[in-house]
């Protein structure tokens, strides 16, 4: 299998289309015959990242990179960034809008849940510029 790359755009405040990028990614990985447990964890982490872009940013994109030894999802947005990443990683801490809460989100579980469902997880954020979240799943032991 060669390395493959895909990019999906994510619009801010679009709560109808939110989740479509994650859904496409999930279906793509299923077609490739990736282990269903790995797909499930990656789908949850990617969806949380996608919802965060919809809620908190001015828009962004999700990149999927599939390599024989790993799958990497990079969710990058333009926006205010995360003021205090350590605080945002705490379960229950949330700055979500009322609209996000109406849709069933904003419980302050997003970032910790992304980390829990990733083999490797990185957050990089610059105030006033945006946030880049990287989620990696190993496909082979030691990858």
């Amino acid at each position: 299998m060669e390395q493959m790359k895909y990019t999906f755009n994510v619009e801010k405040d679009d709560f109808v289309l939110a989740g479509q990028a994650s859904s496409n990614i999930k279906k793509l990985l299923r077609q490739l015959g990736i282990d269903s447990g790995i797909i499930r964890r990656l789908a949850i982490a990617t969806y949380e990242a996608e919802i965060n872009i919809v809620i908190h940013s001015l828009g962004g994109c999700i990149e999927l990179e599939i390599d024989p030894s790993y799958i990497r999802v990079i969710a990058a947005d333009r926006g205010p960034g995360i003021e205090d990443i350590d605080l945002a990683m705490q379960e229950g801490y949330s700055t979500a809008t009322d609209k996000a809460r109406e849709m069933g989100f904003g419980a302050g579980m997003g970032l910790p849940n992304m980390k829990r469902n990733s083999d490797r997880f990185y957050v990089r954020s610059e105030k006033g510029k945006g946030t880049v979240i990287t989620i990696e799943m190993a496909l082979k032991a030691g990858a």
Partner: protein
Amino acid sequence: MKVREIAEALNAEILCGFDGLDTEISCAFGSDLMSDVLAFVKGKTVLLTGLINQQVIRTAEMADLSAIVFVRGKKPEEDIIRLAQENNIIVLLTRDTLYSASGKLYARGLAGIQLD
């Protein structure tokens, strides 16, 4: 417990997923908070919720949930049902409240999920 038995216990209308009524469900989770569904639910689970929007279906899709029961008689729009259909998720609708529906299923032996 089969989805068919859940539908009978809750006197529920089947909105989509007629093919999947014999699907085995091993536990249930009741919440209007999708963040918690994503954080806590694993395996062959039915979600009971009073929240009606596309993200409930997306959440079920991502977490590999087999079925959703919409409670309090809140019927979702057609496009929401269509999204569930596309993703092979069974959708039921009951007039019971979240509390009553949960109680009926629990009394019939359907367990809640175990938190780690």
